[in-house]
């Protein structure tokens, strides 16, 4: 998985490519922890994300909990396949998602 970060003032966009699974999640967690200070607007661009498992969902949930206190978070360009995972886990109710 590759992680690209775009910072614009207090707005951070995370662009993920590839697979977010148990083996790649720790790296994302580390990147996120180092980047969230002072961010009030976090966007996840999932256009090139092919796969997400519970390890990835946990990171998104943690990030949402943080952003609920310091600003807002949304997901963009989510594929139909990933959308289904978000629906069955109830994450469509917790996260702000655009397909």
């Amino acid at each position: 998985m590759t992680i690209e970060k775009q910072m614009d003032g207090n707005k951070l966009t995370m662009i993920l490519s590839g697979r977010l699974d148990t083996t790649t999640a720790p790296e994302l967690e580390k990147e996120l922890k180092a980047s969230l200070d002072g961010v009030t607007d976090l966007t996840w661009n999932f256009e090139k994300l092919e796969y997400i498992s519970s390890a990835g969902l946990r990171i998104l949930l943690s990030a949402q909990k943080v952003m609920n206190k310091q600003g807002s978070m949304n997901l963009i360009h989510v594929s139909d396949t990933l959308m289904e995972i978000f629906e069955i886990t109830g994450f469509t109710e917790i996260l702000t998602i655009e397909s």
Partner: protein
Amino acid sequence: MLEKKEKQFDAIIENLVCVNELIESCLTKIDCPIKVKMQIDIAVEEIFVNIVKYAYPTETGTVTVQIELSDEPLTVTIVFTDQGIPYNPLTREDPDVSLSAKDRQIGGLGIFITKKAVDEIFYEYKDRKNILTLKKVIE
């Protein structure tokens, strides 16, 4: 029965890639839709990772993964066998998916997603082995 493969792995996280390769090598024989492939991958990851994390607390053990393709209807059956501590993951309570972000717990998602991703899942403990079977019909 169209195809059957079996391999034993050390229960370490680095082997997730190898388990995925075993599954992939079988699924390429059929026209498996991307969505179905992803659901199978997720279920396999969740089960394998749980065995890696919890089955052998004091040592590195092994897990055998068997994959079988059968037809009428086209079905993939994946069996995980380990000799770790007896544990039935199906007894785990489902997370409450209606809770808000504040109240949602971080854990419990793995087996929940697995149950939703496959058509059948069953567990037995036999001959001092945990045996977990997943079945998915490929449309």
